[in-house]
């Protein structure tokens, strides 16, 4: 029998399975309090998914508020709280971008988990009214040679590629890093960026009494039911596959049609509000749309097109079937709306309307099964002030200083650049389409992705994603700032001016006070860093409970920085193309090895303090790089980060097979492997001009040497023939995951072809 509102009123004492749905006693009592009765089964389903950690941010909210306190940026058109923030990039263009995690689903089913992660973030961007123009991905796996990594990595990469390629979105960058701490908990963070005109910004809002609620896209099935509360918010235990909930299967083809239909709908101005269906499906979309509007909403749930006719009302409300959207449409425009959908073969159904009340009402075959104030579902979820304290082991960790001298610089160099973190990533990035749409100016392995947004004015946007977790483990406040600084620097290297920040905060269980401290510190560090750099946080995502058993991952704040490029024709690329150019190092090197790649790869060491943050120096360097780009004063630029100068020289030389002879002064180990911030290597045919500009900007310059030859030579220290360097740098991933020229053993699983 269907549990109606009136039945619930009459049976106050009926036992309800709220604990199985992830609600705590006091949360359940609050729901009863709000409603003045026990919730119906359908209401309980809605509250439980919407009040889950994933949807309600109950543990993180109190900290994230700091981002809202940042000084208001002139560029910010839509701030945090919407599906994604929107910034003004000039010429009437607005850009929206956001990162989102799909960590746990990608562990359960790597291909589909990663694929649907891309699908979800693309819908968030589309929802803002924008045409998605590019994606990026930041990935973390367990040890590269661990057997489970061989299962997870190929599937995740194929899934990111399979979905993004099929949508026609160029993948313009990202990261892939390995660490034991991700063995049972890989991270899959996907970013999407979209472009629109200012006037095209759309909001998730149900306005206008009598307007229709239209559900469009894929049919609703049983996939991912409870996925939000179970998949995204619970720690994995050692139980086998039987306990794993079902996974969602992505259909990028349907999503591509959804994108085209939406863009046509936006262009014809057929919607007053729109919302994607992601975590918590219809529960989320209806309650958020209604909560953001001024009235109420009524839905006839039996009109929802189903793939599986046995679904219950509660299951329909919780289903996370992919590739669905929900729009608010004026009655006079419904016909045209449906016609656009029909043209693109997109199923669209009117399922309800906006009412003048203030309740969200849901009926099932004429019986009322939900009658709630929508805000209480969408926004008034529990907020926890979770206790936190500094990890007990941190003092010892920070006191455990790294080695400072290399016993064999040549061997160390090869070890660092051949390590899974330092090696060539083309095994992965060749699986991604970088060319589609014809506007990709820079993509991997460049420091930042750069996309042209106007073919006439040559305006473009640059993006970088960075998330060094080793630094954050040593000091999460500094670590978050270092990631911000690195992404900022990467964007600046391309010649773009940094404009705004997004983030994806991947941490362990918030119920552990030490994890909660890491989280709070990272948020504080990021907020302070953004304030110092004058950048707004436009949005982001929080992923908690990333741990296996009771071991949390290293805190992994992945930071994305968006920059604007006035004229992409002046972009600066990485890699040395010609002999005889002068190689200059911008910035200052200090003997900083804490958390460095060298300490990790060569000594298996993680300890001490991360490099000192210097945001003034970052600002000065970024200003200089933009200036040099606009003047065409440099022929290449590459930032220094993981692996220090050795890594940067290797990548610059191998890109086009041009070597160099350089000399370093002072402590050689520090010169080659320290990871001091605010540094970049540039090449130029006019060193005097670069020196003069650097002096004016207050950026220290060191002349390293000259490009040319088929080796990297550090005078008096070592000589590395490019052939040897290339073989070390390129063979790591193919040796681990199969040489692409051979038929490889891992057949990507899943229903969707990876072609």
């Amino acid at each position, binding site marked *: 029998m269907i549990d109606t509102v009136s039945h619930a009123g009459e049976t106050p004492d009926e036992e309800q399975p709220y604990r199985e749905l992830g609600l705590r006693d006091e949360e359940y009592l609050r729901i009863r309090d709000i409603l003045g009765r026990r919730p119906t089964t359908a209401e309980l389903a809605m509250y439980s998914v919407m009040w889950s950690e994933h949807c309600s941010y109950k543990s993180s909210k109190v900290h994230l508020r700091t981002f809202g306190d940042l000084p208001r940026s002139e560029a910010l058109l839509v701030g945090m709280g919407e599906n994604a923030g929107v910034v003004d990039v000039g010429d009437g263009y607005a850009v929206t971008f956001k990162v989102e995690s799909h960590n746990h689903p990608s562990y359960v089913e790597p291909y589909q988990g990663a694929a649907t992660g891309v699908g979800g973030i693309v819908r968030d961007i589309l929802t803002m009214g924008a045409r998605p123009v590019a994606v990026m991905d930041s990935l973390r796996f367990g040890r590269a040679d661990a057997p489970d990594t061989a299962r997870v990595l190929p599937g995740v990469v194929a899934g990111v590629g399979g979905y993004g390629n099929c949508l026609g979105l160029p993948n313009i960058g990202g990261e892939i890093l390995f660490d034991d701490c991700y063995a049972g908990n890989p991270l899959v963070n996907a970013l999407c960026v979209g472009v629109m005109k200012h006037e095209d910004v759309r909001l998730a809002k149900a306005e206008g009494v009598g307007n229709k609620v239209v559900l469009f896209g894929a049919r609703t099935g049983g996939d991912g039911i409870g996925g939000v509360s179970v998949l995204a918010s619970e720690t994995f235990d050692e139980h086998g596959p039987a306990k794993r909930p079902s996974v969602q299967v992505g259909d990028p083809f349907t999503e591509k049609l959804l994108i085209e239909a939406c863009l046509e709908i936006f262009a014809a101005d057929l919607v007053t509000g729109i919302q994607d269906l992601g975590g918590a499906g219809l529960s989320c979309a209806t309650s958020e749309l209604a909560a953001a509007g001024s009235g109420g909403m009524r839905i006839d749930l039996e009109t929802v097109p189903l793939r599986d006719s046995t679904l219950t009302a509660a299951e329909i409300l919780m289903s996370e079937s992919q590739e669905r959207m929900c729009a608010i449409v004026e009655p006079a425009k419904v016909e045209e709306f449906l016609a656009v959908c029909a043209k693109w073969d997109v199923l669209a159904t009117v399922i309800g309307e906006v009412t003048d009340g203030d309740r969200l009402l849901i009926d099932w075959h004429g019986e009322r099964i939900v009658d709630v104030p929508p805000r209480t579902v969408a926004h008034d979820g529990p907020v926890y002030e979770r206790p936190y304290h500094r990890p007990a082991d941190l003092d010892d960790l920070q006191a455990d200083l790294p080695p400072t001298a290399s016993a064999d610089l040549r061997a160390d160099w090869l070890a660092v650049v051949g390590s899974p973190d330092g090696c060539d990533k083309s095994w992965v990035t060749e*699986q991604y389409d970088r*060319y589609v749409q*014809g*506007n990709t100016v820079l993509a991997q392995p460049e420091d930042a992705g750069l996309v042209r947004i106007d073919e006439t004015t040559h305006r473009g946007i640059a993006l970088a994603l960075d998330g060094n977790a080793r630094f954050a483990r040593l000091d999460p406040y500094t670590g978050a700032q270092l990631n911000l600084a690195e992404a900022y620097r990467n964007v600046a290297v391309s010649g773009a001016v940094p404009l705004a920040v997004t983030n994806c905060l991947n941490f362990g269980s918030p119920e552990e006070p030490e994890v909660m401290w890491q989280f709070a510190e990272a948020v504080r560090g990021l907020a302070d860093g953004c304030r110092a750099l004058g950048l707004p946080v436009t949005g982001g995502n929080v992923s908690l409970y990333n741990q296996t058993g009771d071991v949390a991952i290293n805190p992994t704040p992945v930071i994305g920085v968006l920059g604007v490029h006035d004229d992409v024709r002046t972009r600066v690329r990485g890699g040395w193309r010609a002999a005889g150019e002068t190689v200059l190092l911008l910035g200052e090197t200090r003997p900083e090895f804490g958390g460095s790649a060298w300490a990790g790869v060569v000594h298996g060491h993680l300890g001490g303090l991360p490099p000192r943050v210097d945001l003034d120096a970052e600002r000065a360097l970024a200003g200089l790089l933009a200036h040099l780009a606009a003047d065409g004063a440099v022929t290449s630029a590459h930032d220094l980060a993981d692996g220090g100068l050795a890594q940067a020289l290797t990548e610059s030389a191998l890109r086009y097979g041009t070597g160099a002879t350089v000399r370093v002064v002072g402590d050689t180990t520090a010169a080659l492997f320290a990871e001091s911030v605010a540094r970049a290597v540039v090449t130029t045919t006019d060193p005097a001009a670069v020196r003069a500009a650097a002096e004016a900007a207050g950026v220290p310059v060191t002349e390293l040497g000259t490009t040319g030859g088929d080796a990297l030579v550090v005078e008096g220290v070592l000589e590395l023939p490019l052939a040897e360097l290339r073989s070390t740098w390129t063979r790591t991933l193919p040796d681990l995951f199969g040489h692409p*020229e051979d*038929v490889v053993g891992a057949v990507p699983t899943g229903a969707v072809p990876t*072609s």
Partner: protein
Amino acid sequence: MRIGVVTFPGSLDDVDAARAVRLAGGEVVPLWHADADLPAVDAVVLPGGFSYGDYLRAGAIAARQPLMRAVVDRAHAGMPVLGICNGFQVLCEAGLLPGALTRNGHLHFRNRDQALLVERADTAWTSSYAQGQTIVVPVKNGEGRYVGSDADLDRLEGEGRVVVRYAGGNPNGSSRDIAGVTSADGRVVGLMPHPEHAVEELTGPSVDGLGFFTSVLEGVLS
């Protein structure tokens, strides 16, 4: 010169193909897969992408759409047609070109800058090149492995119908390094690599791809 560019559901590189036509000096006529009639165009480009999600087989469903019947008829009457990547797959499925494209030998999608040897510089789409010229254009596909029986491939080679061949490495395991083939009359050409992604110095690895589009414009003019 009016060049039609077809959009199927799931076409992705249609915008790029149109840009390439424009940069070569042609006028673009957007075509919609569901239309039964082909308007007055001088040539047609079937762009890359994942028509119908590449479900069933790449190109299989698109090849059976209404507009394709008209394209096939006009191609038989001599209209130049270029199929790029998914468009090549559609042409094979529609029977306008021989052979079939199957899952890459290494089972991965692969995107890289690829050297190609131009073996036929006398088709409607390659007359701007010199025979024996090497060009570099992007390749990106998951089902780009060109196959056929040995007898069929021998016949194809014998008739000189291989237009472009992979040089410096075969990206997908195609038989005999075949990257693109032509119809017997040299009017219909299909290739897996993407010349439309190599038409601007800013966004491509070269501008070597432009020749496909200037070829057809010059051919139609003369």
